């Protein structure tokens, strides 16, 4: 017998889309002003039918997909969610539900458990009811807490997902205590990334470097205290450390997202890049989409790279960063991600950080995602 071991985490899919995300719908009862759904989501209709989603699941499994996230919008708004989970589970996926907790009733949780759902990622924005509700533009805290208790009662492992902005970064410690109290195993502090709605509201949302460092220190101290009871994820975001993120582990490398209308995307934000045509599972076989479509091949590997990426000794580590961010902040998706200190556009990121730091008091009202309503609720929040 050879020595027992493992490759720690499988990040090289050998060309397979190991991670599959199904955005079942763009509909959502919340109005978060950092939402990563497209700005024109309300114009996109014609969600895939149950049978069409099942075909996606079958085809993706054949391509080697293993981890599956049911996301949105709010996936609980799809009444066929339980049916899709059961089907995916039967195909051998590890099924995750990524939810706001709205509509996650005991009855549906029991059905989801029976259907074989493995894990739930629940978003909570603040440990304070009023602040949570103002941030998401809807009364939701009590429902989230009730859902949380019921999820634990049904024995699901939970990732508490906390999107971090200046409005809740001081609540990191309280959120960890909330996780500890409710028996949550994982807590992910997801520093907001600036695309779509979040980019519109960047100056209002972005915390300062000092706030981030303070929050990181709190997380580290809590890691000491809690040990293995709660696993915490906290990463200083790319805007602040001069290094780009290894976005999606490379374009078309291991990740595949299917949007509500069947558009196949190399990442959930990819539609921000103008000029790309996204193949649709209604028209094309998924195998072709993944392996051969021009869009999935466009930034795969490194042959598309320009300077400084192409000569950089870190290109295999960060893949040139994020294509969407390069497009949004420099106008060309082939440019180096401007979050990289080697990018000739690095000043764009530095000035965004400065603008957020120097902003005096509450600035412009937040643009909330539903019907472009202005978030006047933010006027009463502290920062």
């Amino acid at each position, binding site marked *: *017998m*050879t*020595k*027992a*071991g*493992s*490759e*720690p*985490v*499988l990040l090289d899919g*050998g060309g*397979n889309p*190991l991670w599959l995300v199904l955005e079942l719908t763009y509909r959502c009862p919340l109005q978060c002003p950092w939402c990563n759904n497209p700005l024109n989501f309300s114009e996109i209709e014609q969600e895939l039918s149950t049978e069409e989603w099942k075909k996606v699941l079958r085809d993706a499994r054949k*391509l*080697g997909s*293993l*981890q599956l996230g049911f996301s949105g919008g709010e996936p609980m708004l799809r009444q066929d969610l339980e049916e899709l989970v059961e089907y995916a589970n039967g195909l*051998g996926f*590890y099924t*995750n539900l990524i939810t706001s907790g709205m509509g996650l009733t005991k009855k549906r949780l029991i059905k989801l458990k029976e259907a074989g759902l*493995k*894990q739930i*990622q629940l978003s909570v924005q603040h440990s304070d009811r009023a602040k949570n509700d103002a941030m998401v533009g809807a009364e939701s805290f009590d429902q989230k807490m009730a859902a949380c208790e019921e999820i634990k009662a049904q*024995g699901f*492992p939970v*990732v508490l997902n906390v999107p971090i902005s200046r409005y809740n970064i001081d609540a990191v410690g309280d959120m960890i205590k909330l996780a500890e109290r409710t028996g949550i*195993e*994982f807590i992910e502090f997801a520093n907001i990334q600036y695309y779509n709605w979040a980019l519109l509201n960047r100056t209002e949302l972005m915390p300062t470097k000092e706030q981030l460092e303070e929050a990181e220190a709190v997380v580290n101290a809590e890691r000491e205290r809690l040990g*293995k009871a709660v696993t915490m994820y906290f990463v200083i975001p790319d805007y602040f450390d001069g290094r780009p993120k290894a976005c999606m582990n490379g374009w078309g490398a291991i990740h595949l997202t299917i949007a509500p209308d069947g558009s196949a995307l190399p990442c959930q934000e990819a539609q921000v890049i103008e000029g790309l045509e996204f193949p649709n599972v209604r028209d094309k076989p998924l195998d072709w989409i993944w392996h051969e479509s021009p869009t999935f091949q466009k930034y795969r590997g490194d042959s598309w790279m320009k300077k400084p990426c192409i000569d950089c000794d870190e290109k295999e580590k960060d893949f040139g960063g994020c294509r969407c961010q390069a497009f949004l902040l420099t106008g060309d998706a082939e440019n180096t991600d401007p979050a990289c200190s080697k990018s000739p556009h690095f000043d764009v990121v530095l000035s965004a950080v400065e603008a957020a730091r120097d902003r005096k008091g509450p600035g412009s009202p937040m643009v909330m995602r539903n019907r472009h309503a202005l978030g006047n609720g933010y006027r009463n929040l502290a920062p």
Partner: protein
Amino acid sequence: MVQNAPFNLQDIPEINPVYMMQYEESQSAWVLLYPEGIIKLNDAAANILKLCTGDKNLEVIIAELKEMFNGADLEDDVYSFMEMALDKSWIRTRPS
């Protein structure tokens, strides 16, 4: 055998219910799936974990592995793997 170890031969290990172990054709390997990740196991690790069924203790598991591998001297390797697997929460144990 390692002294002051986290568990002893009478303990019964089982795969942490958060994890799911399956053979994956596209990887030609056994994998462990868990929230946020995928672990590719080598054959030796898979052979051990397949026996962590929650109904036999480590002593029995080692005996079965020895039988499978013609009496090979594998106690220490199995034990250190189990220690690592417990540390990473891939398995949990209860006393028999």
